[in-house]
């Protein structure tokens, strides 16, 4: 159920409507064209042999038996692949080199040690089973705290320490706020490693042409139109001889931004044999080695409050286990400091972060991207403050919310919040949840010895990301701030047909639908009449694509820009033909006519034909044709100050939500069951309520996973991955998801086209901490305090036992 409450003055026709998804028919009929559907003449199939050890020296590799197997065309080791391709591009300043196939040493369980191309995947895997690798096992670094010890074995000899990055940043006068505080609430917290697990794994088809030294690469990477030069670099192909072609992506949740390892392995295999090669990770490859895991943090946090509950300052000390490599630098913390103070007027922040390397697959990005544990710890502190100070948790939030008249609001780190009305969201959430009814039910069940809990969380979703966050903590960043652009090309043909060509791939979201709506809005035509196609890397449609809840913001800006450029030209062409002043011509319902006095008019087709073939030459500045490429740069970003005392605005479109989950906890078995779930969401102007509902509900489902079941687990001594399949790494299913009641409030962003904000991550950014709060509430009579996710049955029983043992 999804309801939008919108101000009365609504004049838009298509933006804001639940227009049917353009993407659905091809997806639902299996005709969308994934990597697995790409079949080229003579194409081979790749498979990868992976290390069973977390940390080991490769003593020797014997590939002779594999090479002798009929059907095997090429076998590559790290050493032979290194003759064909270069190491992964990295956004960190530190010397941490990563190759797609390990050379000499493996640093995490599942790291590639060899790759095979054969006439089919079965033979390729048979060949992998025949490769003999001799390892000298090295001590595995599993515990990040132990890895910080100066005497610990180093993951990389090029570093002085496994603490690859450490920095303490103060924003505002933290010490003064701590000194004047009436109460300082302290909490530790543990947020374990979880991963994005899309249905489709990462994959590529590479076709190397040795004669022209050119590479054609189909992939499900997001960055084919953002960093094609980086792919050219690892493939050792000149940038103007690499063509990257997008395929429909079967989900990403952040995991497919780069997928450089897959592209590198596939490209190396194709270069080695001069034939097209397809390599699609299987599930074991993906779970172990895709770089799809998110944050792995230990928090030690303090919230300083005045006697009346005013939040003064926040201290976050964080140890973050990054795994074996550091490709995206400390980006997840750049992300987190976009909204570390949540929706509250907290005046100062100390952020002390240690990024630690261990023998695990490296962190990548997963829906939430660093702000997810940030929301968890902050809302835990606020609930704890309410409890310790005897202030109702709702009231404490009300007292500290940034007020509607304070926007745009600058938080201590320098980021800007554009707009919001947090109290209105909270009030409406309390109303739709029917809190009194649930409190009565809680009383009734407690009398029966049952434990019902009501959760509450009010959280931010920073949206419209700017990739500068990846390196924003460096004093001397390897790269300057980026405008992180998005492009759309629109052409209207001679018959008036509108085609939009976009640089971002179909990543499981709905770019075609959004572009159709925006074009329809601008021309007054039906969205179904708009053709949307995806650009390959030779079109020039620069695009950072989906990620950081940005694509609807950025695509609507790019599309409207391109549509208006073309429309303006059509108005000039029509005005010329109708012998009118362009100022007096408008486009209504796809018809160009005199403003206010419809009489003479021209259709899209009539204007199109004239512009294409019958240019009258009256305006010498205007040439024939109707085409425009519009690149929409990030709408609001300012550079950081040199001393990092102000990071600048980098994530200023800030959505907000209040979640109220209702849970029941079985204290004997530790089982947590969700009974109901209420959400009020504000993502500015809702572009398409049906799409937003899909994003929010899907995010909540992943949030349920984060709260209750998802966790990567590694053997404490050998570092072996203990969750290699979906039998161990658990994802929520429909059975674990209650009905979710969802409403929207709209406070449009002043910075974006139509006032839209992002909403791609919000569900997962809020649900984990909201459900933790519900479990706390349920077990309040037993004195439980949740500070670790996921709340597995064993952890819940353990927390109850610990609470009972406390004096």
């Amino acid at each position: 159920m999804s309801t939008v409450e919108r101000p009365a003055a609504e004049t838009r026709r298509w933006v804001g409507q639940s227009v049917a998804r353009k993407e659905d028919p091809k997806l639902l009929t299996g005709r969308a064209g994934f990597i697995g559907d790409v079949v080229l003449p003579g194409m081979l199939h790749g498979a990868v042999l992976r290390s069973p050890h977390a940390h080991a020296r490769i003593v020797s590799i014997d590939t002779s038996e594999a090479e002798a197997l009929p059907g095997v065309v090429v076998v590559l080791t790290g050493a032979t692949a290194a003759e064909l391709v270069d190491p992964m591009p990295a956004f960190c300043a530190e010397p941490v080199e990563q190759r797609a196939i390990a050379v000499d040493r493996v640093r995490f369980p599942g790291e590639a040690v060899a790759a095979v191309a054969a006439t089919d995947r079965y033979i390729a895997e048979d060949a992998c089973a025949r490769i003999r690798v001799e390892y000298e096992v090295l001590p595995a670094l599993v515990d990040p705290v132990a890895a910080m010890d100066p005497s610990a074995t180093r993951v990389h000899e090029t570093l002085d320490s496994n603490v690859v990055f450490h920095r303490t940043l103060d924003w505002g006068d933290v010490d003064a706020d701590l000194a004047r505080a009436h109460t300082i609430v302290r909490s530790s917290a543990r947020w374990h490693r979880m991963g994005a697990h899309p249905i489709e794994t990462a994959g590529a088809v590479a076709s190397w042409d040795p004669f022209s030294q050119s590479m054609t690469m189909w992939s499900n990477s997001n960055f084919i139109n953002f960093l094609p030069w980086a792919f050219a670099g690892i493939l050792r192909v000149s940038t103007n001889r690499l063509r990257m072609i997008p395929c429909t992506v079967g989900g990403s949740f952040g995991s497919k931004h780069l997928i450089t390892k897959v592209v590198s392995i596939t490209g190396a295999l194709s270069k080695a044999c001069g034939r097209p090669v397809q390599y699609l990770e299987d599930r074991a490859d993906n779970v172990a080695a895709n770089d799809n895991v998110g944050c792995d943090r230990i928090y030690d946090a303090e919230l300083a409050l005045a006697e009346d509950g005013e939040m003064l300052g926040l201290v976050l000390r964080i140890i973050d286990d990054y795994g074996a490599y550091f490709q995206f630098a400390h980006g997840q913390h750049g992300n987190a400091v976009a909204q570390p103070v949540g929706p509250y007027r907290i005046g100062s922040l100390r952020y002390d972060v240690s990024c630690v390397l261990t023998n695990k697959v490296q962190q990548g990005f997963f829906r939430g991207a660093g702000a997810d544990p940030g929301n968890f710890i902050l809302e835990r502190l606020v609930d704890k403050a309410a409890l310790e100070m005897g202030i109702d948790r709702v009231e404490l939030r009300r007292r500290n919310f940034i007020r509607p008249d304070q926007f745009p609001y600058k938080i201590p780190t320098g980021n800007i919040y554009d707009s919001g009305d947090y109290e209105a969201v909270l009030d409406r959430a309390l109303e739709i949840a029917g809190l009194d009814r649930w409190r009565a039910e809680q009383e009734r069940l407690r009398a029966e010895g049952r434990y019902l809990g009501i959760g509450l969380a009010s959280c931010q979703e920073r949206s419209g990301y700017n990739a500068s966050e990846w390196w924003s903590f460096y004093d001397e960043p390897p790269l300057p701030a980026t405008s992180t652009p998005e492009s759309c090309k629109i052409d209207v043909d001679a018959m008036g047909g509108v085609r939009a060509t976009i640089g971002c791939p179909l990543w499981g979201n709905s770019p075609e639908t959004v572009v159709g709506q925006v074009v329809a809005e601008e021309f007054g035509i039906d969205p179904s009449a708009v053709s949307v196609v995806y650009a390959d890397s030779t079109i020039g449609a620069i695009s950072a694509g989906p990620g950081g809840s940005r694509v609807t913001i950025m695509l609507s800006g790019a599309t409207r820009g391109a549509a208006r450029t073309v429309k303006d030209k059509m108005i000039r062409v029509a005005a010329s033909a109708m012998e009118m002043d362009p100022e007096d011509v408008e486009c209504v319902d796809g018809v160009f006519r005199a403003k206010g006095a419809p009489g003479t008019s021209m259709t899209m087709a009539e204007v199109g034909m004239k512009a294409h073939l019958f240019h009258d030459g009256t305006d010498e500045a205007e040439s024939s044709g109707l085409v425009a490429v519009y690149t929409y740069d990030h709408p609001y970003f300012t550079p950081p100050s040199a001393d990092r005392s102000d990071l600048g605005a980098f994530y200023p479109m800030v959505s907000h939500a209040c979640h109220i989950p209702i849970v029941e906890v079985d204290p004997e078995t530790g089982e947590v069951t969700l009974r109901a779930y209420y959400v009020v969401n504000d993502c500015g102007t809702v572009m398409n309520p049906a799409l937003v509902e899909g994003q929010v509900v899907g995010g909540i489902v992943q949030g349920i996973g984060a709260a209750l079941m998802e966790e990567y687990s590694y053997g404490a001594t050998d570092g072996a991955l203990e969750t290699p399949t979906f039998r161990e790494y658990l994802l929520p299913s429909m059975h674990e998801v209650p009905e979710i009641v969802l409403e929207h409030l709209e406070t449009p962003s002043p910075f974006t086209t139509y006032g839209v904000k992002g909403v791609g991550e919000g569900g997962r950014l809020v649900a984990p901490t909201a459900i933790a709060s519900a479990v706390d509430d349920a077990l309040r009579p037993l004195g439980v305090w949740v500070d670790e996710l996921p709340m597995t049955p064993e952890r819940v029983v353990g927390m109850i036992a610990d609470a009972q043992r406390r004096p």
Partner: protein
Amino acid sequence: MKPAPFEYAAPRELDEALDVLGEHGDDARVLAGGQSLVRMMNARQVSPAVVVDINRVRGLDSLGVTGDNGSSTLRLGATVRQRTSELSGEVAAHAPLLAEAGAHVAHAPVRARGTVVGSVAFADPSAELPTALLALDGLVKVRSRAAERTVAADDFFTGPFATSLAPDEMVVGVEVPVTAGRTGSAFVELTRRHGDLPVCGAAVVVGVDDDGRVAHARVALCGADQRPARLPAVETAVVGADDPAAFTEAAARAADGLDPIPSCHGSADFRRHLARVLTARALRTALARATSPKETTDAR
């Protein structure tokens, strides 16, 4: 995730299947519902040289009750699907524990292919059906080309995924003796998600005397030991009991002597804890059902 090469045999007669097993022994695997074997082959956890598909073998799909009221027996052949068993009126009437436990196995599409006997032969110490069979004093019917034998469930399960089956033998069916008198049964489990293998589960059958006291009980656990575990000490302790407190006291011994296999879903200690909690719950529900046959409350 592709299996290693293998030969495939699809006999129509039992003797043909037994011939293949006799010839290849440990190198052959029997394929019935394929819900565990195929997954493990794809992951190359097992790479049998020969797969013997018994789905076409005549006569293995029978389900029925034989004998008179004094000593009747419920029989399920090797290709009887879990879903068929779960929905069978005869199973519901004569071994409701088997139906109740069966409904907890995975999801309906899996049960539509998976077989009861396949689960028993696979001998997963966490699985529901082997434990239900154990609590029902079930029998396992075993054949080789040379001989036929019947093994008590308690003697069949020897360890994790291990049974007393010889390499040339296959399980052709299971039998459950139908108990006369007033009995009640219950199966309760904790799973991480709906349809998952339980972290721990308890299967209980109790018979009551005319006063509503426990006359005899059979208690078995999954996920709590190296194999499906019978709990004779608890069974003895509850005889004569008629109130929940007595069950809790008896169930406090449920984990004694057990050696649970830890996993990321539960440590050995947590499984011992669950053994006690779930045994008490299953006993309470089973007694309630025995004394009031219409009792349908859940086993909380």
